[in-house]
């Protein structure tokens, strides 16, 4: 394993991204303006999180060559800005966030995995990590100063577990979770995802087989781990308090939506045939689930994580769909608590045809994404 302190100290012109950020196709932004071609400059100083950064967004799409994945195209922007920026990543790459106006980007060129943190508002990036192991996914800690990354072996693709490192490179990376134990009920791991709890106190490390997923809920402060390993549970919607919300094991939608009590393992079926789902909160700050009723997404429903107090919620009158988590929507936008996002086909648009809107769950207020960010 190679660790490069130099990289963490911010390589010139952010080699992590510049190496692959061949400037790309001009596309339209969320607001309909052309995307600007972009090679990120190196940010000066230590990585920092901004404030008042709602509206920062990204979307990642495959870049194909003769029908085969040649790379991925990352589009980033800020609602309210006239343009979006695009850069090309390697085929094995990811984006995470946004947090504090930054987007964490990982890309692997077949020899090294490199992580960068893009400050969208400033239009620059910090190089924060380089490894010989493949970093499959990563996330910023709630303190904004710690990086968690999930690795596999480059040659064997064996699971190497969850690692953490300080963004400032003061100490070397250390492993905080071992590889997940092989279990024939789940098969080989297809996708690992890192999802913070709604209060960002716990980190859910989700290891999904072809369909079913296991979740290890890590308390990063005390190191406690809870395992949810049920072959009838699929991808994670979110965690809040002592409850985990997930879809059932389905190859599509609609799909059952279940809530698992992490204390006693009891489960509650929140809906038998839900579409996309996200966590949000009510007027009193209590977490709740917002989900589509059925696969069409014409109507929505809110329900407590314990299955109580269900209520209907109008769908988007213009046909936008609820934007699910990054694993389902291939993108995300930074929003204040209590807001949910709607976009065409449940994704953030990059062609400007139908602008995304935000809805405030407690009072139903709906505004364009770019309106609340200013």
């Amino acid at each position, binding site marked *: 394993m190679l660790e490069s302190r130099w990289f963490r100290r911010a390589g010139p012109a952010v080699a992590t991204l510049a190496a692959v950020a061949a400037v790309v196709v001009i596309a339209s932004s969320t607001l309909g303006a052309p995307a600007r071609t972009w090679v990120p400059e190196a940010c000066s100083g230590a990585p920092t999180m901004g404030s008042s950064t709602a509206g920062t967004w990204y979307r990642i*799409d*495959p870049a*194909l060559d*003769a*029908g085969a*994945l*040649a790379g991925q195209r990352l589009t980033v922007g800020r609602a309210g800005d006239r343009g979006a920026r695009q850069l090309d990543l390697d085929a094995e790459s990811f984006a995470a966030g946004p947090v504090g106006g930054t987007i964490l980007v990982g890309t692997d060129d077949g020899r090294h995995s490199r992580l960068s943190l893009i400050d969208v508002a400033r239009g620059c990036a910090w190089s924060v990590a380089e490894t010989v192991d493949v970093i499959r996914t990563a996330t910023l*800690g709630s303190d904004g*100063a*710690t990086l968690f990354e999930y690795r596999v072996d480059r040659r064997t*693709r064996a*699971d190497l577990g969850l690692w*953490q490192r300080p963004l400032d490179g003061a100490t070397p990376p250390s492993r*905080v*979770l071992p590889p997940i134990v092989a279990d024939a009920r789940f098969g*080989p*791991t*297809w*996708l*690992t*995802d890192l999802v913070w709890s709604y209060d960002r106190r716990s980190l859910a490390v989700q*290891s*999904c*087989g*072809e*369909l079913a997923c296991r979740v*290890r809920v890590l308390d990063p402060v*005390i*190191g*406690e*781990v*809870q*395992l*949810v*390993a*049920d*072959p*009838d*549970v699929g991808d994670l919607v979110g965690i809040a308090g002592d409850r985990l919300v997930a879809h059932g094991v389905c*190859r*599509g*939608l*609609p799909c*059952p939506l*279940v809530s698992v009590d*992490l204390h006693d393992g009891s*489960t509650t*079926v929140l809906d*038998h*045939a839900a*579409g996309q789902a996200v966590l949000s909160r009510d007027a009193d700050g209590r977490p709740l689930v917002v989900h589509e009723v*059925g*696969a*069409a997404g014409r109507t929505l429903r809110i329900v407590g994580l314990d299955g109580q107090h269900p209520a209907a919620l109008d769908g988007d009158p213009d046909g936008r769909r609820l934007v*699910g*988590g990054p694993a*389902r929507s*291939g993108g995300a936008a930074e929003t204040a608590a209590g807001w949910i996002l709607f976009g065409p*086909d*449940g994704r953030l648009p990059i062609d400007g045809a139908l602008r995304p809107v935000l809805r405030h769950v407690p009072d139903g207020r709906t505004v364009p994404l770019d309106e609340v960010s200013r």
Partner: protein
Amino acid sequence: MITRRRRRGRAVSLLLVAAVAATLAGPVTRIAAHSPDPALGGDTFVQDGRLLYDWRTGAVPPAAMRTAINAAAADVGDTRASRAATFDFDTAGANPIGYGTGTCGVNGLACFTRDAPNGFTMWFREQGRVFDWGTLKWCQMYTDAPSGCYDVETIALDEFGHVEGLGHHVNYSDDSDYTDAVVQTYSRTRPRAGYNMHVLGVCDVAQLQIRYDIPGASSKYSTCLDVATVMTLSRSAASVVYGGNVTFTATLKVVTDTAYGRLSGNPVSGRAVRLQRRPPGTTTWSNFATMTASSPTGSYVVSTRLYSSAEFRAVFSAPTNEGLRADGSPAVAVAVGSCTTAPCPLSTGR
């Protein structure tokens, strides 16, 4: 920052296995191994409906995959053995099939949404998508398909099955019945058996028949079914003179049972139904006549002259090539008067 490290894997998992399995049973009917695929929740499409799909704008699959997806759509029509909907490509199709990221989430190869009876969507992962275990290879994207590739036609057939309303087949623990269904939880890669199934399996068809009905009364019931039948028998007269003519009419139906879905109460025609007889006071039945199909559908008749009193029943023997159970009708008696006009036989009989 992590200040103290204490890993404690709590044994929530075992509790969850049973609990979630129970709670998830609502939308998906749980059925034992080698039974019809479970049914997904939600409505069905119109019987024999024709669902038109088009390639999603901006996310059109490459030519080799389009060909395989179209072939899978044809496979549905060719092998559904039911009145399930069919799928056809049409540039005006309202149901988009895409290639790329889509909104599949973590699901591996492909995904769908179904909004029966209105429509569906489908997505296929792109060739070369990198997963934790390695890189996705679609067999059809190669001139010489490599080991470890996934067959597009098979996966597309699986997805079309889901769209129809099929859940994942519950296999035996050793997966020895894997090829009884193409709608599987786990997909196989070349060259494992079943990686390139291009027909719906018998247990896929079974659930399609339950949800959509069989094409006609003489159509075969999937061997993955075990459908009870009920046979009734009536006669044109309870008593006749010696040598008088009696017409026997049998009806064969599927037992009325909500578990059989659209098959419930179906008339069953075109099967072999025999009329058996036994002398009054005896217990041994003997074959008497073969009944022929008649109308209304599911009826079988035979007319015969009788020369002695007897009890009769109609019998349907379970065929080996379909999933229908045998049944025999209750006995009906016909009294035959004595012979009064010579010549008369020395013994009773026909």
